């Protein structure tokens, strides 16, 4: 059985390069099309026995709904799948972040942790995401599809495949793109695919 970790479709803030974190922004028109593209592709891949779970943030939940509208199995919302909270950086563009926090931005790009008050630590994100993904994997009898966010997906996938958090190794998933993994009987996670986007999906 397979586990898919899917990043939500595009929002207006993604398009403008504004960091969202816990801020609840909805999909824009491109994002809706990406959600449908991902749903079409994943709908053709997953088995009939599928469990769909999602971050409750509307951009992820609406991306999950697009798949659920094809499969009709329902979507379980799980708070632990939310995006990392970026505190004072939420709503700011890349230029604004670099202007206000030049050293912290560089630390964040390299290590994943900017060390800024109010920004959720990577360790916390990894822990809650890992717990949620493993728990849903235990509960699901068939394929599992997890709808979540760029930062949360990157940090948790890297951790699940045994890489330490101090250095960013996994890149950022595209909007509407996904990871495919499987968990072996000894509970070791294996990366099967990273950043899959169906050829027909708009970017």
């Amino acid at each position, binding site marked *: 059985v397979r586990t898919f970790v899917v990043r939500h479709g595009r929002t207006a803030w993604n398009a403008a390069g504004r960091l969202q974190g816990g801020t609840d922004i909805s999909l824009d028109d491109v994002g809706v099309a990406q959600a449908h593209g991902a749903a079409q592709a994943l709908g053709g891949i997953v088995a009939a026995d599928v469990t769909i779970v999602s971050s409750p943030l509307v951009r992820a939940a609406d991306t999950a709904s697009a798949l659920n509208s094809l499969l009709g199995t329902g979507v379980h919302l799980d708070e632990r799948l939310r995006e990392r909270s970026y505190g004072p950086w939420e709503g700011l563009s890349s230029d604004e972040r670099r202007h206000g926090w030049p050293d912290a931005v*560089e630390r964040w*790009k*390299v290590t994943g942790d900017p060390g800024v008050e109010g920004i959720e630590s990577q360790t916390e994100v990894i822990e809650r995401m890992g717990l949620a993904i493993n728990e849903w994997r235990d509960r699901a009898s068939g394929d599992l599809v997890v709808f979540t966010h760029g930062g949360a997906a990157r940090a948790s996938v890297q951790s699940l*495949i*045994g*890489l330490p958090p101090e*250095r*960013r*190794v*996994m*890149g*950022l998933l595209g909007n509407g793109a996904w990871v495919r*993994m*499987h968990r072996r009987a000894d509970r*070791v*996670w*294996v*990366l*099967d*695919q*990273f*950043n*899959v986007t169906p*050829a027909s999906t708009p970017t």
Partner: protein
Amino acid sequence: MTTLILWRHAPTGYNLEQRLQGSLDIPLVPHGRAAARAAAERIGALYGPIAAVVSSPLTRAKQSAVELGAVARVDVVEQPGLTQRPYGEWEGLTWNEIQQRWPQEYDRRMQGLDPRIEGWGESAQVAERVGAALRSIALSGQTVVAVSHGSALTLGVADLVGMGPSAVTLGHLPHAAWNVLRQGSQGDWRIDGYALQAD
């Protein structure tokens, strides 16, 4: 952005029979050419312009590489460091045959360890050799495609991102599939795509 596309060759007859090739030089099956061409077109469309196509000297890699060379309009360059891991006395055999004749060594292999057989390419050495070849062909700010083999590329990725050569968490790379690695500001390598395919 400095980008390496790590592309596995299209299937050969030995691949279809699930025989280990290693250093054996087996050509693509007829439909392998078409699979290579489809992947080459997708790679060109997604990541072009491509500055260089660098191939393992083995025929199955070079036959795949020329399809991409045609798409990218560059000549294929050979790089011995991208050749496949040698499988020693297991070359030409199927996994079933190996399991029957070397049950203990087969189990070691399934756990990600090196089997103790004649002529086997040790994971640590192959990882270092392929990692060094990949670093040597990367071009600053440009996209280079390395055409190589399943085992060699998995070990090469492990070396680039600092994973141990016995890591079992990087999955199987299918034929004609590719990985995308990009270099960050500190010279570190990042996995932006893994086991991506044309269809």
